[in-house]
Structures are given as C-alpha cells and as structure tokens.
C-alpha cells in the first residue's frame, strides 16, 4: 500500500489536467506567433523556413501606423477617463449603504455580458438620433461604455478590502475628507488604480465591435486587421502584427494582475 502523504499532498492527476487545460486553451493562439516567422505565405504544415520579413513588411505601411496611433489615442483616453469616473463610483459602492444597492451594482455590471453587437447597434442608433458625426470620439464613448463595468469590477474588491481605519486615522490627525482622500486613499490604492488603467487600456485597444459601428473615416487597429484579411498574401503580415498585439496585451494584463496582488499585500499594513 502506498504511504499516506497527508491531506494536502500534491495531487498529480489534477496537476496534469490543469496543464492540459491550459494547453488546449492557448493552442489556437500558439499558431499565430509560429506562422508569423514562417517564410511561406499559406498557413499550413510543414513549416517552410524562418524569416522576419513579415515583421519588416509592417514597418512601411502608413495606414497601419495611422490605425495604430488612433487605437493608442482612444485607449489612452478611455483608460484614464473610465478610471477617473469609476474610482468615486466604486468608492461609493464600497462605502455606503443605500437602498437597492445590490441590484444597482448588478445592473452596472450588465454591459460585461451584453453582446458587443447589440451595444454597438444601440449606441449607433442613439448617436445618429442625436445627430453626432461618427469619429474617434464616438468610438471612445463606445469603449467607455464597455470599460466602465470592467473598471468598477477591478476597483471594487480593493476598496472593499481597504482598511478604513487608515482614513479614520488621517481624519483624527486633522485632515479634512478631501485631503484624506489625496494623502491616504489614493496612494494606498494606487496599484489597484493603475491595474484598472492598464486593464481598460487593453480592452479598448483590442475592441472591434464598437469601433466597427461607431468609427468615422479613421479606423482603429483591429479594424485595419479585419480590412486586410481580404488579401491572402497579406495574411502572414497580419499574423506578425497579431503577435505583437498579443505580446503587448499579455504584458499589460500580466502587469495589471501583478499590481492587484502587490496592492493587496501592501495594504494590510496594520496587522499580520
């Protein structure tokens, strides 16, 4: 009989299952970087040869550059604005008892699960009614609608876990509420707030539906990719572009997750 190794001994079967799970999850994505370095035009095995030409190929494209900068501009505006709007909202939800709070919060989170298509159509209809000309600004508005619930869901657990006696201590030491917010609440929660900025930036940067419905003559990066799919000889270059975007998104998301954790341990500050 095998020796009993304790209730919390490592479970190998489960570990292998988890590894397979992760592998299958990322298998399709894995093909993108692999074929972006393949010298053949078509995505098929066997691989032909290693090349960086598809990456070099990206450099000269003016429309791509324009689309990239459009996306960066939108993402920067969206991330900062939605974080600035979400911080007081999340604080209020975390702090105060109000009637109907739970349903209200669920309602705020609804855009997370609503199909982007529906949101896009709805916003397009609304903006048309109001006579707003479609532009990068309307895309920004659309992205904010998507990003605000994300921002709140990132910030809320941090504000709930925030030790309120730190703010009480500040008030007790003579600081009025706004100064307390500035000197204690913000600096103590900056990892979570930064995580929120990075998360919303990534979401806006990769978003397609809203951009598709709400953009004017200028296009965003995901729209550019979609437009180029018509040209088969361009496909490897798109894979190269996608690889770069993947890398960028991964770095942002990973940093944002790390920041959330850092904040949570730093925050205990008082007791073990």
């Amino acid at each position: 009989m095998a020796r009993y190794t304790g209730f919390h001994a490592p479970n190998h079967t489960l570990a292998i299952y988890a590894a397979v799970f992760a592998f299958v999850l990322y298998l399709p994505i894995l093909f993108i970087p692999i074929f972006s370095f393949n010298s053949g035009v078509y995505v098929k095995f066997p691989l032909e040869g290693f090349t960086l030409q598809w990456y070099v190929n990206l450099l000269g494209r003016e429309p791509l550059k324009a689309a990239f900068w459009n996306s960066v501009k939108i993402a920067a505006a969206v991330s900062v604005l939605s974080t600035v709007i979400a911080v007081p909202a999340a604080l209020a939800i975390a702090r105060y008892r109000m009637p109907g709070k739970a349903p209200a919060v669920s309602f705020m989170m609804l855009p997370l699960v609503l199909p982007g298509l529906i949101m896009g159509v709805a916003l397009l209809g609304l903006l048309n009614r109001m006579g707003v000309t479609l532009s990068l600004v309307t895309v920004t508005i659309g992205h904010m609608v998507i990003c605000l619930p994300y921002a709140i869901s990132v910030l809320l657990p941090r504000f709930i876990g925030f030790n309120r006696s730190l703010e009480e201590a500040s008030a007790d030491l003579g600081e009025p509420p706004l100064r307390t917010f500035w000197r204690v609440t913000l600096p103590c929660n900056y990892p979570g707030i930064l995580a929120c900025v990075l998360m919303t930036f990534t979401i806006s940067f990769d978003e397609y539906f809203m951009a598709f419905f709400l953009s004017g003559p200028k296009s965003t990066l995901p729209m550019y990719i979609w437009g180029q799919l018509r040209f088969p000889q361009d496909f490897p270059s798109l894979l190269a572009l996608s690889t770069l975007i993947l890398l960028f998104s991964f770095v942002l998301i990973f940093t944002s997750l790390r920041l959330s954790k850092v904040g949570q341990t730093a925050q205990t500050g008082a007791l073990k």
Partner: protein
Amino acid sequence: MISVRKVSKSFGRVQAVQDVSLEIRAGEFFSLLGASGSGKTTLLRMIAGFEAVTAGQILIEGQEMQDLPPHLRPINMVFQNYAIFPHLNVHDNIAYGLQRLRLPKVDQARMVDEMLEMIALSGYGMRKASQLSGGQMQRVALARALILKPKVLLLDEPLGALDKQLREQMQLELRGLQKQLGITFILVTHDQEEALTLSDRVAVMANGWVIQVDTPAGLYDHPKNRQVAGFVGTMNFFDAVVSVHGQDRVADVAGLGRQMLNGQAGPHGNCAKVLVAIRPESLVLSSTEPGPGKPSVPGKVEARQYLGGRQILHVAVEGRATPVAVSTFAHRGEDSWAGSEGRPVWLTWGPEAINVIDPD
C-alpha cells in the same frame, strides 16, 4: 475636562449606548471596561467623532463637540489595529498630522526625532511600516497621536494584539508616559487586569449602560452588582437572606450558615434576598478544624489550579451546588496542597470578607 451628558446611540433598532453620563477629569487615566458588545468602543468612537450621537452632548473643556467632524476635535486616537499608513515610513507616519500646521521642515524633523526618542525608536525613522513588529507599530501609533499635543488621547484596545509579556511591559510604559505628559487618556479595553493596572478610574459597561464608575480598588472591593463583581477579578457568589434580630442584622448564607452583618451596606428590610460576594483571597483554608470564635464551615477539596505564585482550590461545601474558590499563596519548597483533592478542609473568614450586593 470631558463631559459626556446623557449620550445614546442606536444603530437601527439596536441600542449600542444608553443614556451614558461621565465626567472625566483633566490628566486622568480613564478606562471604559466591558465585554464585546457592551458599547464601550461605540462610546469612544462618538468621543472621537467617527460616530454621530443619537442623543446627548459631548463637551471638551466646556465646548460642545458632538456636531464636529473628527478632524476638528482636539482629540487624537490610537487605533486597535494601529492604522499605520503602509505607504509612508515611520518618520512620515509620525509627521503626518504636522503637515497641516505648516511648520518649517527643520522643526518638524526635530519634533519627530523627539517623539522617536520618547518611544525608544531613535534611528527607525526611515523604516517601512511592514518592517515593524507589533509593539513597535503600537509605539509609532502612539507617537503619531501625541506629537499633536492633544488634550485627550483615546486608546481603542491598544494592546490587544500583543502577546502577554509585551502587553504587560507596554502597560507600564503607557502608564509612565501618561503620568509624564499629564494628558487625559481614555482607554477602551475588555481586559479587566489592564483596566485595573492602568487606570485612575474605570467605567464598567454592559449592554450599552455604564454600571459603575470607580477607582480600581473601589471596583474590586465594593462592586455594585453581580456583573461588576464577576467582571473584575474572580468572585464567589452566595444566595442569602437578610433578617433583623433586635440590634443585629444577620444573613443566612447558603453554604456558609448564619453571618453577622455589621456596618455593611445593603438592604435593611426583613427577609430581603441579597447576594453575598466573597473574594477567593478573603477565605482562609486549614486542614484542621479551627477553634471557635471565628466562623468556619467544613468542606472537601474538589480541584486544584496551580498558578505558580498562588493557587486556587475549589472546595465543595454542603448546601451549595458550585464549589467555593479559595486562593492561597504557594510557598517555595513546601507545596502543602499538592494532591489535596478529596481532603477534608475547613474554610474560615473575617467579617470584612463579606460583601452584600444587589441580587440583580
């Protein structure tokens, strides 16, 4: 100095503090003692301004405070979990409240250094909060509050998170500091030993009411009722009936027989039901029958609690369900009560041992 006048606080239907009035003198070390849920912390938080009063007034040096927010009250507080700012180092934590005063940097630094010296943490200024031990955080929290020279310092279970040895050391330091500075301290604690050690006066709270306000010795020797007597130290309670025979007032005490009551306060009517309370250290135990003259009852040792310097013997006596606790000193070298379980003994006591208190 501080007047709490008919202060009440309710959270919805729960009455947390009920009609509390206290007069706390300048320079006094005052404690609010009670079990959890007794309202002591709520009362402290109302004094600090973190909770609004439902009714009543709080005055400091004659000025009404109950409608001011915490940052405008001349009060500073040491929080239960210290609430050291995790994003600041020790120096900046202590200097936090000075920024508002717009003092020159040099003066600020000098004041912080003085504080660090006072709490015996000189040279720790650049440390992060996470690098401090519990006792050190406690001292930083104290320094951060005291640097503003408050009229009143509030302490919310400040020693609760420390281990026993450190707690006792900090108690002595706290007491010394308070005497040295002359600032009024108001301490909230559930630890009766702590309250007795530190305080000039103690208010015992239960269910939102203040039951008794007295000096530690007053509380210990003359508890007002069963709650106070049971909360402060160990106490044996006996049911008794008081009766008057001519000039004498006597009590028939369950388990101890008839006792003369001379001079004790308490009800004077015939057949009044009372409670007789006797401290374990007021009883004397002997293994042989004592002579007449002193009251005594026979009993049998049921259990022994050895506590080092002293020990508590639980003695069963006739006419009483629970054994009587008797405290005796354990002398070095001769442990006469070792293995005494089951031994017949006699309990004796002097007339001053008997406290007559209200049965409720």
